[in-house]
């Protein structure tokens, strides 16, 4: 049982592609080998910046011979049919056998595949793998036609058994397989041969290459945290960066450097982002001050000066980068402070020129709509309407700042700093930072009322907008992240326990999408000195012309936009669209509640009830119902309810009447029947006020308490009595069961 070792050695593979490439190599090769009739005991794939490696152990040394018989067309069938059969079976006409079949003579093909040596199969599979490798982007080089992620230099491919290692012969466009590889590009750039995977890994390590990416990552993290710890500092964890950096080095050398004092006043998020994005540095924090004071860089070299030159160079580059960041920060602060709470006008004006979506207008229009909506929502969630509106108007102005232009991922974070500098209240400033949240399903949800109002407004305007222009998510396509936005709304109202009827807000939001943007704030054409022939006057006139053209263009664009909004033109259409959007939310809600262990039929039972656009109420109802159904009483009550409902429905259909009134106690004969009357009266007395108070668990507990009396009723009492009077009275009694249960949730939707 030989072991197989493959290494594809190339120029530097992009870090982000390495892990996937190692997995693809493993899959393509093992699938190919198995398909060709080989088996193996174990497989492992590895990657470094310059190599993809696959090790298989316990490979069978040859594939078994295979004999297959295939039945073909009848003798005398048209040539076309016979030729087709020959093509499929891969045999010549002369090779066909004629055999007797029930219906006459039939051709048979006997396909014999002799067993093949593992080396032959490996060579074939590996060549095919290399030629068809699924790189996200690949290239040609030199005069060749072969494609690889970067030029491929060598192929190591050996089979090792007790007798020793043998090269699997292979020639891919002139790259001939062998048993050699190379060490670290600078530290040990020599070629050496290997005889097995263990030998390979050990020799690579001696040649300053750590083969395993996770081993490199662990070494980096251990060394970085150690060095930081020795100074009483801690490394800010960043798994994504760690994986990337581990893919940029074959021999990680961790160096801890100092950030120039000039830059320690920058917000920590700026330091962290700039260092990570541009330099791939880790941030090192002083736990006492909370400030980021140092950085960790990972070199690919051990040097005679212990990295002093490398560190000095990196420090210098960082200073230049941070000087840029500081320049942006100071420029932005100047704008923010000068504004001093005046709507952040210089930035807001810039957003008039930034397109949000070509059918939904500019960022500024989006913001204006958000602000109206935030004000509308505010009272129902205990936020001050003025603050909510103001916060919405400035929450996104940082998009026009220099810092966010350079580092888009700092949107909101910078907004908060700049709004504070412009002396906005903390709650307004915080809303800028928080209103994007929650993005992921595990993100924290904002709780401050103003932040929640802005966050809801942002998401609802976006959802209604894309609904209006019919850009709904389909299948796996959701380019505007609308599912995420809907889930965000659900989490915002649910975790804050806010009760909102969404339909009304949706309808008003739809109306706003039809409104022509207002021109407040667009510069007034200044025509005061038209007769003045000075250069300034000429420039002003030019500007006025441009402004006027812009206005016309905006108005034209807006009116054109509305043509695409047929689905929300009339009030009725808006109502329908809003209901459609609510059911999109319900779908999201099912996913959300499924993760909380609530079945979809329970949610359906609750969605069928009135007020289903109040998501918090809906969740409460579903939670209470789920809890009730989890009890023995609850589960059995469903059976009782269904039985009552079935009997009643059948009787109503048969008799053509509705048994909905007037079950009278005086006609009750059996004790169980009387007991049910009493139980229903008692339940009624509890359930109606509890439902009024939206106290679902009390209502449902009361409902579940009916289980005993209902069960007893069905055991002791025959509904279809001889006496028509008794029968009618009992059917009317069943109707009471149905009504009481349906007042809590639509139990007909419950499965089982």
């Amino acid at each position: 049982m030989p072991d197989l070792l493959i290494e594809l050695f190339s120029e530097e593979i992009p870090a982000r592609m390495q892990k996937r490439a190692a997995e693809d190599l493993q899959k393509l090769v093992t699938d190919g080998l198995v398909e060709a009739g080989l088996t193996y005991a174990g497989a492992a794939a590895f990657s470094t910046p310059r190599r993809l490696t696959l090790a298989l152990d316990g490979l069978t040394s040859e594939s078994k011979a295979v004999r297959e018989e295939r039945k073909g067309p009848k003798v005398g069938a048209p040539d076309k049919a016979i030729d087709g059969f020959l093509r499929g079976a891969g045999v010549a006409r002369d090779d066909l056998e004629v055999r007797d079949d029930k219906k006459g003579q039939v051709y048979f093909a006997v396909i014999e595949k002799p067993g093949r040596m593992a080396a032959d199969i490996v060579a074939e599979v590996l060549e095919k793998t290399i030629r068809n490798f699924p790189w996200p982007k690949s290239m040609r080089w030199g005069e060749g036609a072969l494609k690889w992620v970067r030029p491929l230099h060598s192929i190591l491919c050996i089979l090792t058994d007790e007798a020793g290692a043998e090269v699997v012969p292979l020639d891919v466009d002139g790259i001939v397989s062998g048993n050699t590889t190379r060490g670290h590009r600078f530290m040990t750039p020599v070629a050496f041969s290997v005889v097995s995977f263990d030998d390979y890994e050990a020799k690579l390590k001696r040649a300053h290459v750590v083969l395993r990416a996770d081993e490199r990552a662990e070494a980096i993290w251990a060394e970085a945290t150690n060095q930081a710890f020795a100074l009483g500092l801690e490394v800010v964890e960043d798994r994504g960066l760690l994986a990337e950096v581990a893919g940029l080095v074959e021999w990680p050398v961790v160096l801890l450097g100092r950030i120039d004092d000039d830059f320690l006043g920058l917000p920590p998020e700026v330091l962290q982002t700039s260092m990570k994005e541009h330099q791939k540095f880790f941030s090192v924090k002083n736990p006492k001050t909370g400030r980021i004071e140092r950085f960790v860089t990972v070199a690919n070299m051990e040097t005679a000066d212990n990295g002093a030159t490398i560190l000095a160079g990196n420090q210098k580059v960082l200073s230049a980068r941070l000087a840029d960041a500081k320049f942006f920060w100071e420029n932005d602060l100047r704008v923010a402070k000068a504004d001093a709470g005046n709507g952040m006008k210089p930035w807001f004006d810039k957003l008039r020129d930034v397109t949000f979506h070509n059918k939904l207008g500019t960022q500024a229009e989006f913001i204006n709509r958000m602000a109206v909506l935030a004000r509308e929502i505010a009272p129902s969630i205990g936020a001050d309407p003025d603050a909510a509106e103001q916060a919405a108007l400035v929450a996104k102005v940082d998009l026009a700042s220099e810092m966010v232009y350079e580092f888009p991922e700092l949107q909101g974070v910078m907004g908060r700093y700049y709004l504070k500098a412009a002396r906005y209240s903390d709650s307004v400033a915080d809303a800028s930072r928080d209103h994007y949240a929650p993005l992921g399903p595990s993100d924290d949800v904002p709780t401050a009322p103003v932040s929640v109002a802005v966050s809801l407004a942002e998401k609802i305007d976006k959802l209604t907008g894309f609904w209006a222009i019919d850009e709904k998510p389909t299948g796996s396509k959701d380019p505007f992240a609308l599912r995420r936005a809907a889930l965000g709304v659900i989490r915002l109202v649910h975790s804050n326990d806010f009760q909102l009827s969404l339909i009304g807000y949706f309808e008003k939001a739809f109306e706003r999408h039809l409104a022509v943007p207002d021109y407040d704030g667009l510069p007034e054409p200044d025509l005061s000195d038209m007769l003045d022939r000075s250069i300034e006057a000429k420039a002003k006139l030019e500007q006025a012309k441009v402004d006027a053209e812009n206005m016309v263009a905006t108005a034209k664009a807006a009116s054109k936009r509305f043509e695409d909004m047929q689905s929300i033109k009339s009030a009725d259409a808006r109502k329908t669209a809003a209901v459609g959007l609510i059911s999109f939310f319900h779908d999201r809600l099912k996913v959300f509640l499924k993760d909380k262990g609530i079945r979809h039929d329970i949610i359906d039972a609750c969605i069928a009830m009135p007020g289903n656009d109040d998501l918090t109420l809906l969740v409460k109802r579903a939670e209470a119902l789920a809890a009730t159904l989890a009890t023995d009483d609850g589960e059995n009550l469903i059976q009782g309810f269904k039985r009552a409902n079935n009997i009643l429905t059948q009787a109503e259909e048969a008799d053509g009447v509705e048994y909905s009134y007037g079950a009278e106690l005086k006609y009750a004969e059996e004790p169980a029947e009387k007991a049910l009357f009493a139980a229903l009266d008692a339940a009624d007395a509890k359930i109606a006020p509890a439902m009024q108070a939206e106290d679902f668990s009390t209502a449902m507990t009361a409902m579940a308490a009916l289980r005993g009396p209902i069960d007893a009723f069905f055991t002791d009492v025959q509904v279809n009595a001889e006496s028509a009077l008794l029968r009618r009275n009992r059917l009317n009694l069943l109707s009471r069961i149905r009504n009481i249960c349906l007042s809590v949730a639509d139990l007909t939707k419950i499965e089982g």
Partner: protein
Amino acid sequence: MPEKPRSFQEIILRLQTYWASKGCAILQPYDMEVGAGTFHPATTLRALGTKPWAAAYVQPSRRPTDGRYGENPNRLQHYYQYQVIIKPSPPDLQELYLGSLEAIGIDASLHDIRFVEDDWESPTLGAWGLGWEVWCDGMEVSQFTYFQQVGGHDCKPVSGELTYGLERLAIYILGVDHVMDMPFNDPQTPIPLTYGDIFKQTEQEYARWNFDVADTAVLLQHFEDAEAECQRILDMPAEDPKKDMKIIMAHPAYDQCIKASHVFNLLDARGVISVTERQAYIGRVRALAKACADAFVQTDAGGAAA
């Protein structure tokens, strides 16, 4: 290991000597305003077709929007690129490149040199390639690209292109903090000149002109003219009636394409091109570049069968 260079020009001279020793034809800068060394016809056009090619040159490059009145430590509206282009790309191009770093005083055993993914694309040239930015101790010192397409044509064979940002590289090697303080010639000579002695004033002059003074109406007209002339040149029949032979004027047409591209950069710096117009202008320049590439591959130098 050679001694460290002492001036900006010594770095350039060493690169010239090194690449000459590796068989490159040492060309002179192209005599037109370009945004990068790639625009030199020795790269753009010679990357096309089947004929082998190896050239290296310094290319003064202009990026009007990057002007900072000479105040920024390494941002300039006029700077130098060193460009190497070899077709087909040799298998040891990475080693050759590392040899050039050694030649200008970067000792690979003391520094951390890394090839970090960077895919190159020039929307105005209709060109793209894969490669890296090369980092030395965390600083980008070169672009390394295997051209895959130029002017909409697949590159067969593939050219390897190396571009060194000379000022930034030299600042690092010479250990100065501001480009204007960098010695241009040997500081020991009787008349030592810094980069600032030569370029500080011009950076101010051009920054003012680029940002505030250039006449946009005239520039717009230049753009239209260059575009029209490029098209007119290419529309001429291949046969020259006077010489009675085939003369396809790919290079004169490409000059007009370069001109249009630079005028576009100037208009951009003047802030008169909106976001939506921007794409349209880039598309117009790309159309010219493609037409020039189409013409070049029909010429002898472009590998067309005679």
